[in-house]
C-alpha cells in the first residue's frame, strides 16, 4: 500500500521507515497516525494525523510533512542563500550561485530537497545539470514543489 511513498522517497537516495499499521489511505490520500489516533479514528474521516501525500494519474505528490520526514534522513539536499530561498518559495528555479551547500547526489535527474540556511525544508526539485559541472551560473535545480503552495492554495480557496 505504501509503495508510491517508498518509491518517491528512494529518489532522494534514502529510505524512511513507516509502520504500515499506522498508514491510513483515504481514496488517493495517505496519512500517518500514531497508536493513540488509531484508537480514535472512525470511518469517513476527512484528514488524520500527518498528511503524507496523494497519488494522481499514477504519480505521487508528497506533502511538506513527508518532505520534512525525508529531510531528517541522510537525503539529497541543497542549502540555499536567503535571496534564493525567497525566490524558490515564489515558485522559481534555483540558480547555481544561490546554492551554499550540497549533500548527497549531484547527479543530473535526481531529486533533491531544498533547505534554507536554518536547515528548514522549503520544498524539492530536480537536478537539471550535474552540480559538479564547472559553470558560474544558470538554472541548476528545477522547482517541483515549494511551501509557497500554501499561499497559492489559500488564494484558490
Amino acid at each position, binding site marked *: 500500500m505504501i509503495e508510491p511513498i517508498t518509491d518517491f522517497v528512494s529518489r532522494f537516495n534514502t529510505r524512511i521507515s513507516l509502520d504500515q499499521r499506522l498508514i491510513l489511505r483515504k481514496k488517493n490520500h495517505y496519512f500517518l497516525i500514531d497508536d493513540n489516533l488509531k484508537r480514535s479514528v472512525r470511518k469517513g474521516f476527512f*484528514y488524520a494525523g500527518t498528511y503524507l501525500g496523494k497519488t494522481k494519474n499514477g504519480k505521487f505528490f508528497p506533502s511538506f510533512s513527508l518532505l520534512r520526514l525525508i529531510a531528517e534522513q541522510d537525503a539529497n539536499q541543497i542549502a540555499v542563500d536567503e535571496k534564493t530561498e525567497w525566490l524558490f518559495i515564489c515558485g522559481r528555479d534555483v540558480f547555481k550561485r544561490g546554492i551554499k551547500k550540497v549533500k548527497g547526489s549531484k547527479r543530473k535527474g535526481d531529486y533533491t530537497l531544498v533547505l534554507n540556511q536554518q536547515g528548514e525544508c522549503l520544498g524539492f526539485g530536480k537536478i537539471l545539470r550535474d552540480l559538479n559541472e564547472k559553470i558560474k551560473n544558470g538554472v541548476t535545480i528545477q522547482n517541483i514543489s515549494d511551501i509557497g503552495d500554501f499561499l497559492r492554495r489559500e488564494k484558490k480557496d
Partner: protein
Amino acid sequence: MSDKKFFVSRYEKLGWKYRNVNLKQAIRINTMNSKEAEVVKRLQSHGIKLDKIPFLQSGYRVSWSEFSVGATSEYLMGLYSIQEAAAQIPVILFTELTDKTVLDACAAPGGKTVQLADLMQNTGAIIALDTKKQRLTALSNHLERCRVSNTIVYHMDARRSSRLNMKFDKILLDAPCSGNFATDKHWFRKRTINDVKRNAKLQKEILAESAKILKDNGEIVYATCSLEPEENEFNIDWAIKNLNLQIEKIDCYGEKAQTNIFGKQLDSSIENCRRIWPQKTQGFFVCKLIKCECK
C-alpha cells in the same frame, strides 16, 4: 429604527457606548515548532514590528510591516499563525491539555485547532468537526502548514457528534454566530435580530449535544464573536439550568458578564463569564463550563 440603531441601543442598555474600532493584525507563535524568542527575532530581522499582547501567552500585535505577515517563509513553515487577539483567549482557558481527548466542535478554518495542538504539544487527540467541505480543505491546509499531527477531521455537524461514539475530556465550542461589526464593516447592514435568534437556537443544540459527549468533570469552553446576549449570556443561563453543567470562574481579559439583561434576571454565576467589547480586540464572549458528576 434601522438595524444599526437597534443594535447600538441594545449595546447601550448593556452599558457600552458604540464606537468604531480599527484593529491591528495579531499573530500567535506556534511554540511546538520553534522557540518563541527565535521566531520574534527572525520576524524583526525582516523589519516587522511586533508588540507583545499582555493578556496572551504567545500573542503579538503587528504594529508595522512592509509586507503581508501571511507571506513570510516563517509563516509558510508554520512557525506562527495569524489569529485575532480575542480569538486566542478561549483555548488558553482549558486546564491541562496534554494527552487529553479534545473535541473542536466547529473547527474551520482551524486557528484554534492549531492553538489546541500547540498547547497539547501534539499529544493526545483532537477531533475537529465542521459542516462545510470547502472549509475543511482550508482547515486541513492549516494543519499541514503548522505541522499538527494529533488531529482527526470529520465532515460532520456538531449536533450529530454523539455518532462518533466517543467521550471527551475537553470540548471547544467556538460556536457559529452572528459575528460583530469590528471585523465586518457591513455587519449592521447584513444582520437582523432574526439571524441572532436563529444562531442562538443552533448554539443551544450544539451545547446540548456537547454536554452529552463530555466526560464527568470535563470542560467545555464556549465562545462566540457575537455581542448579542441571546447567543451568549442567555444561552449559558439556559445551559446551566438544563444540561448538568456549571460555570467555572475564569481569569482572563474582558469584563464580567451581566446577570440582569433587558429586564431578565439570570443565574448569578453568569458573572463568571467574560464579555469583551470591541476596542483593542474584536468583540467576544467566553465562558468555561464543567460537567457535574452523574448523580
